[in-house]
């Protein structure tokens, strides 16, 4: 079970900050939950910049972004 970061409802740029911190901790497999399209785009951009792969799936009102090694 990979780690889950719940960034739903957090305003810009906190979802990105939390994602960055997870990557810095050395995590390469984890999920980020967000609930706005903007946060989804921002987190995906952050993941790409850090040379990891990210894919988003919608689950009701939540976007689940799965991060993994490229």
């Amino acid at each position, binding site marked *: 079970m990979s780690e889950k970061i719940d960034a739903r409802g957090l*305003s*810009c*740029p906190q979802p990105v900050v*939390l994602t960055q911190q997870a990557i810095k901790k050395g995590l390469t497999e984890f999920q980020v939950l967000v609930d*706005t399209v903007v946060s989804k785009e921002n987190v995906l951009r952050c993941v790409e910049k850090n040379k990891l792969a990210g894919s988003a799936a919608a689950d009701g*009102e939540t976007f689940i972004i799965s991060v993994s090694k490229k």
Partner: protein
Amino acid sequence: MKNFLSSRWGIIATGAVIGIIAVSLQKLGNPANMGICVACFERDIAGALGLHHAAIVQYIRPEIAGFVLGSFIIALFTKEYQPRAGSSTIIRFFLGVFAMIGALVFLGCPWRALLRLSGGDWNAITGLAGLITGIAVGVIFLKNGFSLGRSYRLRKSAGWVFPALMVALVIMVAVGFRVSETGPLFYSVKGPGSQHAWIPYSLAAGLFIGAIAQRSRFCTMGSLRDIILARDFHLVSGVLAMVVAATALNFLYGQFKPGFANPPDDHTVHLWNFGGMALSGLAIALAGGCPGRQLILSGEGDSDAAVFVVGMIVGAGVSHNFLMASSPAGTGAFGPAATIIGIVFCLIIGFTMREKVR
């Protein structure tokens, strides 16, 4: 649907278009050197409503309503309209108040700082240095877990309130509404408040900018923050495009007048140009978006952003009534003191609102 405007070229196009429209509106009647300053225009709205009595800066600016409504309409279409609220609302209100107080010490929001630079007004440089400093301090807080907490979903109608208010304001200014001979709405007969483009032009420009800014997530504060925080140059490419486009157009129109002395509607007190923008920069960094971006978020249904905007409008009233706002003659009697109080307020918020979010 792929969102072109959120791509690198999309944000560059957005910035360039905003720069072109801003300078063109000056040509069409808006105050020189002001373009589409969000802080100045909200200050004018505060004046028109009677929240302050600075007679030269009173007018309901349709551009502001346009930003909100343009974002609202496009968000409905793209299904990004999402009513939400509940993230430290009262704190966001006061961040708005102090963002405005700082902006009126400098005389401009970040958009105007950049537009002033594009017109050759070098006083903007100290302001921008202050802005960067304020944002940098905000980033330190963010890195240490600063958070105003989560927002929560609301019913659809919750997000209509603010756009509805904007519609009401546009109708009132379009029909020249007044409650009585001496009552609001107030309309400046001279000074910057009396200078404005034809209402349909202002509204159309606002709607268009609101729409493209919503799609592209254009944000001046975010552009500088992302560089400091993550070496991310995405947003700043749009901001630079805005400066380049506005500068080019200012040259073309013969509006480029380089220098420090006597530019329209600003002052040369460098320390407080820096201080005012440092306060504004810190307040908007903590609130998560520049004054323009807060309008766009309000249109998308973000009630916390709408409260920030209301805070800015109230802040403009407070600023002028309590002699904090600057004028071309220099800073207001209590401008420097208010700036320091504002910075202390923001620092307290920054230090105390930290949490481990998981």
